[in-house]
């Protein structure tokens, strides 16, 4: 006899996607821009606030540039900042031209340095 665990259904504690609720699901967008922030220099709650701030910054920037692509997940990896070892910025799928990307790098860098300076003053 086969002892495979697949031979017998085990009781489950939860199921994702209740079929009875399907018709209730509202249509929502297919893609979303997300910004993640981590590292030694930012604390957990501070990182959340900074990430929201940067997300708004990037949102506004790409909206202004009007160059975001709907199918952006296949864009080649963007070169990292390289100018400052403490600040590592990676932008993916935004579909920006090189000049716009450089500008966005500078804006993000400025915002983070401002955040770090504010943190130092607060200590």
């Amino acid at each position, binding site marked *: 006899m086969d002892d495979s665990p697949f031979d017998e259904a085990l009781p489950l504690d939860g199921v994702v996607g209740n079929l009875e609720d399907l018709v209730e699901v509202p249509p929502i967008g297919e893609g979303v821009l997300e910004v993640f922030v981590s590292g030694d220099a930012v604390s*957990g709650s501070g990182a959340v606030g900074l990430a929201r701030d940067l997300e708004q910054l990037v949102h506004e920037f790409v909206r202004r540039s009007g160059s975001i692509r709907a199918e952006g997940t296949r864009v080649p990896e963007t070169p990292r900042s390289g100018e400052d070892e403490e600040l590592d910025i*990676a932008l993916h799928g935004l579909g920006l031209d090189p000049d716009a990307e450089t500008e966005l790098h500078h804006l993000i860098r400025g915002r983070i340095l401002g955040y770090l300076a504010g943190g130092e003053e607060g200590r």
Partner: protein
Amino acid sequence: MTVCVTADYLDLRSRYPVLDPRRIAGAYPFGFGYPFARDEVSIYVERRPGPSGCQMEVVLESAPGLNKKGILAWNFHGHTFVDYVGNRAGDETSMVIRKEGIRGRACGTGTDTVVLGRWDLDPVGWQAQYYFPPQDFWDFWGGCKVTFEWTTDRRGSGLSGTQTPQPTYPGVRKPDYTLMRKDETLRGIEFTSLFLVVGGAAFPIYEGEMGASSASPSIIPFESLPSTPADGTLVRQTNIEEVDVIYGGYPFPISDPQTLYGLGFDWRQVREIPSGGLKQLPGMPIDGTLLKQQKGTPRFEGPRHTFPGPAGGGDPEVYLVDNQQLRHVTSTEAMEENCLPWRHVRTVPEHTLASLEPGPDL
């Protein structure tokens, strides 16, 4: 000192919700059904020893005949995977992943989430199919062994992540006050046992107790259910005044109405359980439970099952149940270094932690 910033445009159609074991009745291990768009996967989550939620053991098991499946440890910063398990010949089927963004580690070296994928030949490489939102992925399953049983790729829900309903909590399989009947024959003698469901847990109940009747028209056949109610369940044993709130399967006594209201509850939420029902609950909350004692004059603030953390203006005096001991998490840094999510901290009545077995500070 480093800061890692990643901006990525993510496809929501491939993103599926993460189920939170802490808000589901019962104790580890938990089994979850995941009908993805074109595949069915069962996911089993069990806690690993130790206080840290920064690591996770990921295991892939596949049904016979199912191949070219993989689970990729994905890093958004590097826009690539840092490790993987698969079911092709020679692939590892188990890996331990570490959360991205842990202090002292370089950007792009950890794992933000896992991507379930298949191996394609044109173009050659892993084709991403499904992934989980990173925050929930680590908050809910960090510190656990997570086994993915890939059952089939011949059927699925037909629903993308955006069409899949979000989980609802508390996670219970039967509604409160469901009455179940179990008929057994022991040494030729027939027995009938009754069970009452509260907070997703089954409590044995005597015929006639709380009006329970084996002849009730609404009674259903017995189904195996957890023995501990979901977090935030309020229970009162019949004919006893004391009310308890359940967190981590453990009952914390609420001394008076003011305390109950101060915790954000309402008397209408209190559920009556059979006499002696509390005896089936464990002597300590389950490992991984995060607790904080209510302090000061209680006042009504609405339901408060979660604690926003220091940024919310609260007191970061948090305790973790680890190895069945209560350990004081001494600082915000200790919370972060051990990847302990503030959203899981439950507020319990003042002085109720004193009866729990103490352990070393964290």
